[in-house]
């Protein structure tokens, strides 16, 4: 019994390591886009990804043919959605890094944009994952794309602060 458990643990560790070696780069890029940090200074994205990967590892034996990448991405998105309110709320403890490509977007806009366009998740699946109506996902994605392609001209710090406090 104990021997079988040990061999199962070894197999799980081996498979998981192979999965991480293949998927970590893309997942870390996704996480860094979500947290709007600079590509080379992304402690929160790393933490987010480590926690999501840990949960995937814990449920590795019960995946039953499900794609571990999808599972990890779903953990990542849901965890970010839950944490976004605390981290970016009225206090604005963690401001987006100006070096990030998505610094002008709100957390929810980043989340929808990254899931829809960067990860290519279907609109219905994104809506189901985040618990939003499909039309709302569509609207947020359109707005985020527009903001990304035509960023607001003067990023005055006072205006940004007021906007964050108002929302």
């Amino acid at each position, binding site marked *: 019994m104990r021997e079988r458990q040990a061999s199962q643990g070894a197999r799980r*560790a081996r498979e*998981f*390591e192979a999965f*991480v*070696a293949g998927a*970590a*780069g893309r997942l*870390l*890029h996704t996480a*860094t*886009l979500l947290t709007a940090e600079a*590509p*080379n200074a*992304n402690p929160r*994205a*790393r933490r987010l*990804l*480590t*926690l999501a*990967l*840990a*949960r*995937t*590892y*814990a449920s*590795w034996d019960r995946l039953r043919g499900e794609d571990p990448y999808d599972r990890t991405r779903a953990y990542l998105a849901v965890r970010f959605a839950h944490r976004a309110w605390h981290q970016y709320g009225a206090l604005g403890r963690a401001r987006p890094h100006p070096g990030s*490509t*998505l610094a002008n977007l709100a957390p929810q806009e980043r989340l929808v*944009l*990254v899931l829809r*366009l*960067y990860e290519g998740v279907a609109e219905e699946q994104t809506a189901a994952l985040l618990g939003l109506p499909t039309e709302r996902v569509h609207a947020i994605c359109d707005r*985020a*794309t*527009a903001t*990304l*392609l035509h960023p607001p001209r003067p990023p005055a710090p006072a205006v940004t602060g007021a906007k964050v406090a108002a929302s």
Partner: protein
Amino acid sequence: MSRVEREAAARRIMEQTPPRVPPDLCADAVRLGDRLLRRRTLALRLAWLLLWAATVAFTVWALTVRPWVEPPSETTPPLTGW
């Protein structure tokens, strides 16, 4: 600019400068995941233990108190003197 072009442009912007993966990411995830697994196993064991203890306690109580037996009547006066 059509919708498809806009989406393609946004995708291109997002794909710039991928971050470097730290080497200890996998080890950290495995460490955290193992801890999660151990805790989950422990919680499951505790839950089963609790269920078992509750079942045993209920059985013992039922066998000693016998709540299904009709209690002796207390309203009829005792029949004496005939």
